[in-house]
Structure formats: structure tokens, C-alpha cells
């Protein structure tokens, strides 16, 4: 939700902030360096924040039902086992080494390899966010162009009003509303989990159907939450292009409306639109925390919450590395698209 607040326009200024460089290769390597610094900062933050502040990962090993504390010997042994007794500097260097080699270690609270925990959760979140972003992108592109084309009309105003309202509603509230509607008023869709518990599937199609049914509500909530910012962006940039001379020329040439609308007017919105889409995809892994929580969907969001709750250092560190890596990959793709679509960026002509 919070990540949506960023508009394409804000990000659009990015390109011109970079120092002029004299070629695409230089430009891209400078970007890669920046992304590496970013990943380093985040990885370091995740290492030092939990250790600088109160809380103890070993407590997660205690059975909350029974309570109690460790004896001094048991604690020392456990700390030695998880290498928490070493000096902070040594732990940090080892940690950086492990992160660099993608060796995520053993989850303290769940007692299983961190990599298998992530492997079990990541696909579900990517599925949720991938679908939601695709739907939101398609809908906002069509609605935004149409709305801009017929600006001032009743349908345009209605769309703008509805989506401004939708943008004001946080996605956990949207998810809760869907929960009310589909848990109470018309109980036709499953509202929890990613598949029916203890289900025995007779065929792969039945399983696919079950998984799809469980996807509908979370994906809808996410889609509605992602629509507003993109719709307004498309609409405003298309309106911006309508008064341009090339639009007049297109009309004078007698081009079909469809071509005018999508090829000429719509193209103006393409760059900021793709940028916003890339940014939102970058935040995808952490972006469905609320919706996953409402629908108890077993994705990365609920894993993050559990890891934070249990102060599970190895799990936290790995989860945040995955988060950072996704953001940076998406950013890099956005930068590539930028360089490709807008040659001015790489030559520094725009600054």
C-alpha cells in the first residue's frame, strides 16, 4: 500500500539526477554500482538493527505454553551453536560471506533450512502479486486511456471519483471488506489459505481449480489497491498529450480513432507507466503483507511477520535479502527500459 504512494512522476525525475556519462555502458555500470550499494546498506541494516535492540532469538525456542528460561550452560551452548557468542565484527563478516554465497543457514524458530522455507513461500507471493499487477495494469491502462479520451464526461468523472476513493482505502481494509462480503453475505468463495485443507484431489485440474478459487479474493484485494495510482497516472499523461501538435496531425491525417488513442496518445503514458509498474513489481515480495495476513495466505508476507515475531535472525536476514534483491532487479529492469525507450537518458542530454 505504502509503496503505491510513489508516483511515476517522482521517479521520472530520477534519470535527470544522474551525472552525465558518455555512453550506455557507463550509465548502466554506474546504476549497477548504485544498486550494489543499496543492497549492502539493506543487508547491513538487517544485521545490525536486531542486534542493536532488545530481544533474544533463543526465546523462540522456548515453548510458550511452558515458559521458563534457559540455564546458563544451555544458553551458552545454544549461543555457541548458532554462533551468537562470537564478536559482532566477526559475526558480521561471516554473515556478509554467507549472504554473498546465498548460504542462508538454519531457521532458529522453525528448525529447518531457511532456503526451503523461502522456496515454499516465495512462489505463492509472486503468483499473487504477478496476477494482481497484471490485472491492475491492464485495467488501468484501458480505463485511463478511455477516461482521458472522454475527459469531463460523466463516465470519466465517475471513474476518477471511484478510484480516488479506492486509493484512500488501505488494502487491508479492502481485503477486510471482501472478507465480510464473501464470508458472510455471499459465502461462495474460500476466504483463507491457498488450498482446501486436507483436500484429496482426483486430478490436477481439480487442484488447479481449488488453488484458483483461493486466489480470487486476495488477488482482487491487491488489484483494487494497485489500480488507483496507475489509473490516474495514465489518465493524466494521456490528457497531457491530447493537446499536442502530433495529435492534431494524426487527426488531420484521418487515422482511425483506435490508432490515435493507443498509438499516439497512449504512447506518451508508456514510460511513466512502465516505470511505476516496475517499481511496484520491485516491492511485490513485501507488498502483500496485509492481504496475506487477512486471508491467512502462506506467502512471504506472513513469513516476514513470523520471522519478526520470533526474532529469528537467520530467517529475517534471508527474507530481507530476497526483498532487496527483488527491488533491485526490478529497478535495474526499469533503468534498462528507460535507457532503451529514452536514449536521452544515457547520453546525459536531459540533464
Amino acid at each position, binding site marked *: 500500500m505504502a509503496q503505491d504512494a510513489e508516483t511515476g512522476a517522482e521517479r521520472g525525475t530520477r534519470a535527470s539526477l544522474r*551525472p552525465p556519462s558518455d555512453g550506455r555502458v557507463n550509465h548502466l555500470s554506474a546504476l549497477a554500482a548504485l544498486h550494489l550499494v543499496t543492497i549492502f546498506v539493506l543487508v547491513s541494516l538487517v544485521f545490525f538493527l536486531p542486534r542493536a535492540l532488545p530481544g533474544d532469538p533463543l526465546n523462540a525456542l522456548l515453548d510458550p505454553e511452558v515458559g521458563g528460561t534457559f540455564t546458563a550452560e544451555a544458553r551458552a551452548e545454544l549461543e555457541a551453536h548458532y554462533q551468537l557468542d562470537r564478536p559482532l565484527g566477526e559475526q558480521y563478516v561471516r554473515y556478509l560471506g554467507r549472504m554473498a554465497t546465498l548460504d542462508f543457514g538454519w531457521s532458529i524458530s522453525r528448525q529447518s533450512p531457511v532456503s526451503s522455507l523461502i522456496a515454499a513461500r516465495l512462489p505463492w507471493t509472486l503468483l499473487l502479486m504477478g496476477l494482481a499487477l497484471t490485472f491492475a495494469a491492464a485495467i488501468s491502462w484501458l480505463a485511463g486511456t478511455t477516461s482521458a479520451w472522454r475527459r469531463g464526461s460523466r463516465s470519466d468523472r465517475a471513474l*476518477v*471519483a471511484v478510484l480516488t476513493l479506492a486509493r484512500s482505502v488501505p488494502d*487491508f481494509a479492502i481485503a477486510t471488506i471482501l472478507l465480510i462480503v464473501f464470508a458472510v453475505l455471499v459465502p461462495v468463495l474460500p476466504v483463507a489459505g491457498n488450498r482446501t485443507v486436507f483436500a484429496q484431489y482426483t486430478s490436477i485440474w481439480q487442484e488447479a481449480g481449488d488453488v484458483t478459487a483461493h486466489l480470487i479474493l486476495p488477488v482482487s484485494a491487491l488489484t483494487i489497491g494497485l489500480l488507483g495510482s496507475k489509473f490516474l497516472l495514465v489518465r493524466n499523461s494521456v490528457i497531457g498529450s491530447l493537446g499536442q501538435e502530433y495529435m492534431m496531425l494524426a487527426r488531420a491525417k484521418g487515422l482511425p480513432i483506435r490508432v490515435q488513442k493507443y498509438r499516439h496518445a497512449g504512447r506518451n503514458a508508456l514510460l511513466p507507466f512502465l516505470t511505476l509498474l516496475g517499481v511496484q513489481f520491485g516491492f511485490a515480495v513485501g507488498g502483500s503483507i496485509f492481504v496475506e495476513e487477512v486471508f491467512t495466505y502462506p506467502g512471504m508476507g506472513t513469513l516476514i511477520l513470523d520471522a519478526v515475531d520470533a526474532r529469528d535472525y537467520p530467517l529475517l536476514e534471508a527474507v530481507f535479502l530476497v526483498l*532487496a534483491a527483488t527491488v533491485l532487479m526490478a529497478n535495474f529492469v526499469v533503468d534498462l527500459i528507460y535507457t532503451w525507450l529514452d536514449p536521452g537518458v544515457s547520453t546525459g542530454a536531459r540533464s
Partner: protein
Amino acid sequence: MTIVSATATASRAGSAGGIRRRLDSLTVGLAIVGLFVVVALLAPVLTTYRAFELAGRPIEPPSVEFPLGTNGVGNDIFTQLVLGTRSSLLIALLAGLGTLLVGATIGLLSGWRGGVVDVVLMRVTDIVLALPRLPLLILMGVYLGPTLLNTALVISLVFWPPSARVVRSQVLSLRGRAHLTASLGFGAGTWYSLRRHVIPEVGLILIASLIASAGRAVMLEAGLAFLGLGDPSRVSWGRILRDALDFQALFFTDAWSWWLVPPIVALSLFLLGLTLVGIGFERRANPRLSRHSEGTAR
């Protein structure tokens, strides 16, 4: 500024309702936000119970005694809703101002000093902007301790880049202007020029940016409380939602209708109010935008 907005108004002479509509957005927004401010201020008069007082039996339906019924342990939901307004307003104010302070300082410094300072600060901005903010907020919030002040602090530290960018680009566009060059040429000091020429010009942008940050902060505070990571000593709209969804029998009774719906409505209405105020100020600050988003006010 005035010249620009005058031409913008003239260019849209065709739409007579334009100005009225623009006023509407701001007025409606201010009215909604004002309503919540009044409720927050009058909270002691409006409520008869304490937030976590066991005022009645669990899940009592709405009555004269309990206007919005009671929750799973018998707290009065109306009281919690009214007191939740205070949390939301407080976080809006604290985190909004905090974000603005950090963002505006960095933006001003970056745009005004230029050179190495600018390059370094903008790199830092890029890095902060690329951090996964919500997970980081959760992580920092949990480790710092979930008081409202800490939440505001963390939000300010993580969400300042947009404000910094906006302020910086405004300052940059001012730097080349004749009146500023003249003022500096006559020997005006940095602080004088900033106070006299730069800050008044970026004022509206600052307000629009403040409103945007405030809205985001309200959303985040409610979200954290919703995840159970909020201030345990405070009521918050997000927390009411959380308590409701944690209540096992919620959907087997009608309780959801007086327990779940009011905080959602309050939160959405308040955020809508802030959005409308933001749109209003943004249009004043940037008349070109108002031409673009004509009709948004409704």
C-alpha cells in the same frame, strides 16, 4: 506564481465550473478532516467509558447505552472509535511533520548547495527509496518498541525521499530565476534569500507534501496496529479491526456489522479527506496539474 496561475485559469476559460470545482475539493476535504479534529478534541465529552473498560457484556448489539455495541470482551466500540481518532490525528501530525522536516531539509540543502552535496544526498535518497519500506518499518518498529512516537520517528526516517525530491526540484527551478540572482548579487545572505525568496515559493508544495506524508502515516499506523504491532497502550482504528478479526466467532454473529464496519468507514473517510485536501493544495501549487486532472474533485 500568480502570473502562471492566471494564464492557466484563462486557458481554461471554457470550463466555467473549473474554479468552483477546485474550491470544492479543498473545502470538502477540510470539512472532513475538520470533523475528525473536532471529534478528537471533544473525545472526553463524547465518551462515557474508558477505552479498555469492561463496560458491558461481550458483543452486545448497538443500543442507547452502547451506540456501536461492545466488542469481544465488552469494551464500548464507540469509545474506542472516538479515541482511535486521536491516534490517527496524532500520527498524521507527528509523522507528517517529521517526514517533511527530514525531506525538506535534505531537499533544500541538495538543491541550494548543488555540487558534491547534491550528488551525495541524491544517492542517499536513491538508496532509501529502493529499500523495501513496509517490511523495514515493521522490523524497526518491532525492535524500537511500538510506541506512537517511535512509529512516527521510523516513518519519518524511511519515507522522506519523495518530499526531498519535490523540494529539491522546486529549489533548482528557482535558482536560475532573476529575482534570486539579483538578491544574491546585492549581497543577500543565504538564510535571508532562503527565507525571503525560496521558502515562500515552495510553501504550497511543502503543504501538499505534508498532507501526502500525513495520509501515508495514518495508513501505516493503522496497518501496523492491524498487524498487532501497534502501541499496546493506545486504541487505534487498525487495532479495533485486528481485535475483531482475532475474535473467533466474529462471522457467526452479527458483530462484524458494528465491530468491523465502523473503523473501516472512519479510516477510509479520514484518508479520503486528507487526499482531497492534498489534491486541493497540489492544484494551487501546480496549476498545470489542475488542467490535467480536471474533474478529479468530485
